[in-house]
């Protein structure tokens, strides 16, 4: 009896390990799969309400798929469509930007000399410009690969999304049947909690980013700051990363303020706009939307983001938080059980 139970448990663990290995070695398949799963989790509370007792399930799913795909792929497609012209424009503006940055740096260096009595013998502007040119060339040379990947995702994401909408129940039942009896209750409850938390976290961050981006855009429009929409969009998107995101989102706006020739555009304006927007986020939006979902210590959050960036770049920086919240839950459960049985 015990041998059969152990064999079932070992087989189940092996199945999970195989799934993780597969996911790691075939990212071209697992990334769109994971992406479709995230959209599915995000839309689940709405689709569940709309399809309960309704015979128009397929219509609701189709409507959600269309909305999700338009929202996701249209901006990407527009970016890809205009990338060569934008790149040309940017390349034409680069020497001018370099000259302005050089002037600002020289001014700063002179101030430094006045204060400390020697010049800084570094050339950060040339270093940054070389980096930008190198990355730009790399981006252009890899452009066909990115385009292929985009088309691949356009095909795979709807396919997987349709699978999740139509087949997730049957698939879920089969997966649950494979779980050995000895760990079924706990695994099922933790798996469900993770799915709910993950979906809620993504939706909450999405709403938080939209509100913050809108606040920044409105503030910039009010004071007549240049590029309000693109800078608001960057501020909102980077805000998805907790603690580090707001700082990253502030940098492009700060650069625009420093490099602008317009005397009405000042650094103080942008500091106040970002300060107020982030204060509203910290006092109102974050506690109401996000903190109740992932109850983690700020130090744990920052450490998780650093680990996430090492694991898999920007994507893992965003998604590692709900995973850490899940592991916290898992350890708490295991600890509770150990404290009872030991």
């Amino acid at each position, binding site marked *: *009896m015990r041998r*059969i*139970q152990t064999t079932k448990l070992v087989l189940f663990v092996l199945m999970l390990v195989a799934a993780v290995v597969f996911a790691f070695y075939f990212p071209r398949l697992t990334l769109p799969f994971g992406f479709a799963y995230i959209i599915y989790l995000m839309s689940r509370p709405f689709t*569940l309400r709309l399809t*309960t007792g309704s*015979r128009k399930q397929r219509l609701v799913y189709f409507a959600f798929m269309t909305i999700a795909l338009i929202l996701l792929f249209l901006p990407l497609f527009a970016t890809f469509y205009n990338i060569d012209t934008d790149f040309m424009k940017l390349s034409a503006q680069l020497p001018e930007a370099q000259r302005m940055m050089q002037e600002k740096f020289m001014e700063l260096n002179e101030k430094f000399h006045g204060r400390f009595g020697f010049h800084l013998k570094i050339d950060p502007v040339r270093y940054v410009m070389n980096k930008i040119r190198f990355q730009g060339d790399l981006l252009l040379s890899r452009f066909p690969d990115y385009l292929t990947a985009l088309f691949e995702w356009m095909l795979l994401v709807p396919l997987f999304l349709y699978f999740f909408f139509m087949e997730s129940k049957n698939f879920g039942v089969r997966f*649950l*049947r494979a779980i050995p*009896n*000895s760990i*079924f*209750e*706990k695994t*099922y*409850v933790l798996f*469900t*909690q993770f799915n709910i938390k993950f979906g809620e976290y993504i939706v909450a961050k999405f709403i938080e980013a939209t509100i913050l981006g809108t606040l920044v855009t409105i503030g910039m429009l009010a004071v007549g700051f240049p590029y309000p929409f693109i800078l608001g969009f960057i501020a909102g998107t980077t805000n998805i990363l907790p603690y580090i995101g707001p700082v990253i989102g502030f940098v492009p706006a700060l650069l625009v303020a420093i490099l602008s020739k317009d005397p009405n555009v000042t650094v103080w304006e942008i500091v106040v706009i970002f300060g107020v927007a982030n204060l509203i986020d910290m006092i109102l939006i974050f506690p109401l939307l996000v903190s109740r979902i992932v109850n983690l210590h700020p130090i744990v959050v920052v450490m998780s983001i650093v680990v996430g960036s090492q694991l898999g770049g920007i994507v893992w920086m965003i998604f590692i938080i709900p995973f850490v919240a899940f592991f916290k839950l898992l350890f708490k*459960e295991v600890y*509770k*059980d150990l404290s*009872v*049985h030991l």
Partner: protein
Amino acid sequence: MSYENEMRDRIGRGENTGERLDIPLLRYMWDSSPLSFLKKESYHDFFKKISVLNSFTDNEIRLFTGFLHRREFMANEMIFKQGDSGYGFYFIFSGSVNIFSSPAPSEELGDFVIKLEKHQYFGEMGLLEEFNRRSATVTAAENTVLLGIFKPDLDRMLQVYPVLGAKFLRETALIMANRMGQITREIVALKKRIKELEQRV
């Protein structure tokens, strides 16, 4: 007008009925029909025989079965242990289970409490309490099939079918009330017995 007559009339008038054939529903109705030649008991027949769920309509039983998990246990396999975190409530669909009052059960040491048979249920506290610890150990007395409902299923039921969820919660509360009544009666009987023994001594 019955559903069948309404459909017949609409088809006769050449109108679009607007309904698709729901195969799982038809299969469920076929399996649960009293005229069905299937020998095996359907979930519908099973729940019809459980007294505490007799306020459920046929359709509510059909919806309710959609939230259940079928778990198969071999003879002597542990279902849960005393002290484990509890999340689920089980109905015995076939077979039987033994309940023990110790985490490492032994019949010789007198840990055996009761044997539960088909159509009986256990573990309802796990569904209602927020941090439940199992108060007894349960093992399968023979090859057993259980139908379990767990906390996430109850949450989903309350969200999707609130009336059904409330009805099920009411029935679960009734089960707990019955158990409490039973325990009270046993305590009274035990106290009486202790008094008798004291008087005799």
